């Protein structure tokens, strides 16, 4: 194996014209490249401030365009909104009733989620707290109706929300297997452009990131977009602190 490593690296050097490295498989030694310096003339940030009304308006527009459900709520109304959305899951036509689950609804949350957000959940809701130390098995997650998470950053131009696996967002599996994702985004987390988000996330590149732009979708059959394939089929974004 290390033999392969040595040889591949030698081939790369030969291809780049570094002599004394042998040749590539077809017997070549390439010419040294002369790469141009990288021009960074693209926008490093948008014209609108983080969390500004313009950014929020664009974020909502793009999220809706990708068939996410957006709820703009004041901070003190967040628990009630979460409660309402979770209660709706037990409605027969909510599609969430599973054999053997009666009327009770299971919701998974990351252990670091703000408890206040769940303060007004209906009594029949069974809350599963998940963490890296105490992970829920994937097969159990499959029997969970919904997940509630926070987020790290949102990008308005692309309608993207990024989770980075911190305790209020949880393991990647919990926001993947359940069919409904309630994702709480604070207004001041919304940036306009991709570079702004990447630079923020670059502070902790080692964290596992999931970039979410609308619910999962496929266009594989005659380019007809079908929302909801393997990931959550329904994405609710609760945008906190934005005045609708």
């Amino acid at each position, binding site marked *: 194996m290390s033999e392969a490593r040595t040889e591949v690296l030698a081939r790369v050097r030969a291809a780049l014209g570094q002599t004394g490295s042998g040749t590539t498989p077809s017997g070549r030694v*390439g010419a040294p490249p002369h790469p141009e310096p990288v021009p960074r003339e693209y926008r490093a940030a948008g014209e609108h401030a983080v969390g500004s009304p313009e950014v929020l308006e664009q974020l909502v527009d793009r999220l809706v365009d990708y068939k996410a459900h957006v709820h703009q709520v004041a901070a003190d109304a967040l628990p009630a909104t979460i409660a309402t959305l979770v209660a709706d899951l037990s409605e027969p036509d909510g599609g969430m009733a599973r054999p053997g689950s009666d009327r009770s609804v299971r919701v998974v949350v990351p252990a670091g989620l703000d408890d206040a957000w769940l303060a007004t959940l209906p009594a029949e809701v069974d809350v599963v707290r998940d963490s890296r130390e105490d992970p829920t098995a994937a097969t159990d997650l499959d029997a969970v109706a919904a997940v509630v998470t926070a987020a790290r950053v949102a990008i308005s131009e692309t309608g993207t929300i990024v989770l980075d696996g911190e305790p209020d967002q949880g393991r990647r599996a919990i926001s993947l297997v359940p069919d409904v994702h309630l994702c709480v985004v604070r207004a001041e987390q919304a940036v306009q452009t991709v*570079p702004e988000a990447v630079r923020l996330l670059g502070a902790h590149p080692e964290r596992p990131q999931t970039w979410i732009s609308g619910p999962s979708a496929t266009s594989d059959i005659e*380019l007809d977009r079908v929302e909801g394939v393997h990931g959550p089929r329904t994405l609710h974004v609760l945008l906190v602190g934005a005045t609708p």
Partner: protein
Amino acid sequence: MSRTFLGLPRTLRRPDDAGAVDEPFGAVPHPQEPLRWGDAFPAAAKQTLKNDQLRRNLGHATQVIRTKRAAVVGEVPDWEALRDAGSAVKQQVMAQLPDLLQQLEEQVTARGGVVHWARDAAEANRIVADIAKAKGADEVVKVKSMATQEIGLNEALADEGIAAIETDLAELIVQLADDMPSHILVPAIHRNRSEIRDIFLARMGDAPPDLSDVPRELAMAARAHLRRKFLSAKVAVSGANFAVADTGTLAVVESEGNGRMCLTLPETLVTVMGIEKLVPTFDDLEVFLQLLPRSSTGERMNPYTSLWTGVTPGDGPQEFHLVLLDNGRTDVLADEVGRAALHCIRCSACLNVCPVYERVGGHAYGSVYPGPIGAILTPQLTASTGGVSGHHDPNASLPYASTLCGACYEVCPVKIDIPSILVDLRAREVDADRSKHGVDPWKTAMKAASWVMADGDRFALAGRAATLGSGLGGRDHAISVAPPPASAWTRSRDLPAPPRQTFRQWWAAEHETSPVETVETDGPTSEEDDR
């Protein structure tokens, strides 16, 4: 070519997969060589041109994607600046490749991953099979990946008694049909909804018997079918869209969530990646995560992108293997002109605008890499076995699978000058020809130019071809191509009008004897040129 159907080996089908049909749905059985199958381009194209269904499906699909792409690219004010940056970053990557590869290896290792190096397809397949066996897995779930198609991983695993389950909807369709993909991004683009329903009913054991051909229903049947696989799989295999050298971070860009399933749920993850897929720094992702989705699916952003760095304790796979694959890439890198083909981020935009691709479809290219990028990449990847200048190698004909209209260059998010590389590769083939047969390369080359310019309609497309004329004389002549101006035609319409003469006829005229068979000429030829 023997017809061996190795998509999902029947012997390895689970009861729920077992189909009653013995004959494959696929017109294209799985090849022995994923980079070289079937006839040379002209003969293969002649076959696919007869398939009206294929052409209708393709025409519809490419037109839809082109329109979407144009709309979302048009709304980005700094698109050209992003392309310039993307192109330059990739040049830097190639120039610093030895250092960046070692940096990536260090970072992935430091984060608990294991890095493997593979000189060729067989070595990469061996590594993956050994890991799967060590985990006791007789089934692995797979995320769509060009690299694993290129090395024929599924077939290699099947030989070892391991079933590779494709989880991307289109790949699943292709696999169930024992077919071959025909497009980088939408591999089942050549199938329409009723064909897909028939494939599911015959081949997917748990498909509802009353399955309709409504795309939503078909997608839900696939969801149900695959969910159990995701929940039980021990090992997943993926490719990578990008690898960040300075942090060891890997990125997979997808739509359906099957990628997240594979990258998250199984205990062991094996990622197979071409050595060219690097970017130097984490911040470079800000360029490519803008360029790729808009160019590829015509979305502002794809539904899901996963980034991970080695192993995260308690979250996701607890064992991570990264296989760095050469398999001909260093031969491409050694070519001063052709090395730019390694900048490709596999967005498939060049396929969707290519008038030749739109008419013949992906299968005619005889490679897992079809379309304009395939025409420059496939011959070079197979250079060590005659792909570029081997007179009898079907891949040597691929650089002729183009009208040199330049549309591919205009849309390429990393500005790969595909037409120039095509001309360079043709010139090399011409040189090889001359040394063998004493053919005057200038004469051969000018025939191509004169055909393009002989007709008013074609002339509208020929801006690029004309500027490339200086390169048509064979490799001995210096190739001096000025950076092409944005041609007017791409702004006024997204796809050039079809040439009156099919490229097949053109081929026949240009290339009196094709490497495989003589194609009869039934249209105007370029014999008026007698220089």
